[in-house]
């Protein structure tokens, strides 16, 4: 069902554009042209954040943090097995999907742990990555409360996820 949403939207868009007498080919080219400079602009920011995340993971700090913090997360209803996932999620998208895959294979796709992990990933975003990329083209140096608020939301989302999986 969901596979039809994008194609149908595209057909609607192209027909609408035709109706409005837009040259779809020329316009698409014009837009696509902007992709390369944009990627070149954001590459250094992505590389910088990924270097830091790689070091964190290789050094074993994330595992250590996960072990120390797991009592706190347990209090919030998040099982110990998922603490590393919750900690890593704000930093890396590909890394947390790899971790989710490990969880799925280790505990079985339909177990409580796995379902929690899926909902946690589904309701959160890679906060640090999003923030770096979004402010990369602005002059902003001070983000004030943006990151704390986003992180609180992520932890809250993980709690809700674990709770919902228990009752549903």
């Amino acid at each position: 069902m969901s596979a039809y949403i994008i194609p149908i939207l595209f057909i609607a868009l192209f027909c609408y554009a035709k109706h409005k007498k837009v040259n779809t080919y020329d316009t698409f080219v014009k837009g696509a042209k902007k992709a390369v400079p944009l990627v070149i602009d954001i590459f250094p920011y992505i590389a910088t954040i990924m270097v830091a995340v790689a070091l964190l993971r290789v050094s074993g700090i994330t595992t250590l943090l996960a072990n120390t913090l797991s009592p706190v997360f347990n209090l919030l209803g998040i099982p110990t097995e998922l603490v590393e996932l919750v900690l890593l999620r704000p930093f890396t998208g590909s890394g947390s999907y790899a971790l989710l895959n490990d969880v799925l294979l280790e505990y079985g796709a339909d177990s409580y742990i796995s379902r929690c992990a899926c909902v946690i990933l589904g309701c959160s975003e890679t906060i640090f990555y999003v923030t770096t990329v979004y402010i990369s083209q602005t002059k902003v140096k001070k983000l004030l409360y943006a990151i704390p608020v986003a992180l609180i939301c992520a932890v809250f989302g993980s709690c809700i996820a674990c709770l919902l999986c228990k009752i549903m």
Partner: protein
Amino acid sequence: MNTIWFIMIVGSICFLLWSDPSLVLSSMIDAAGEAFTLCIELCAVYAVWLGILEIVEVSGLGQKLAKALHPLIKKLFKIDDPETEKMIALNMSANMLGLGNAATPMGIKAMKRLDDGSGVATPAMIMLIVLNATSIQLLPSTVIGLRASAGSTSPSDIIFPTIIATFCTCALGISLVKLCQKLFKKRGAKK
């Protein structure tokens, strides 16, 4: 960001000095390589979506979408610039469809327009970051795919809890940003 990055890098390197110093440089270069591969993938995604976006804009659909979302955007961002509103409207729509990568170029454009050059994030910018960081996702397609390949009997039964959780985080994010805005205003007034 500078402080966070500094702590992450220095902390990890100190740790690695203990365990395995040879890993430091190699893992950094590996990560930069990964970033490069990711950027090539992103380039493909952006090319398609920026092409589509251009059509959306030129055909006038962008304005229509912005008009439809105008009351909501006005309430959340308190801005008065139709062009920025259009970008935010497109960014939010793409996010809801679960197209985080397609939302990024529009988000960057909106951020550029919201920037006042003072070096401090404006309330509207923070709202946009938090909205994207807690993004409402109606279709967690990657997760469902992974579940299916891991042999789940009903891979899509997480959709409903995900939607509830995503709405909760988004609502919390919006209210916290609004609350912090008020707190910061008060502090600014005292000064």
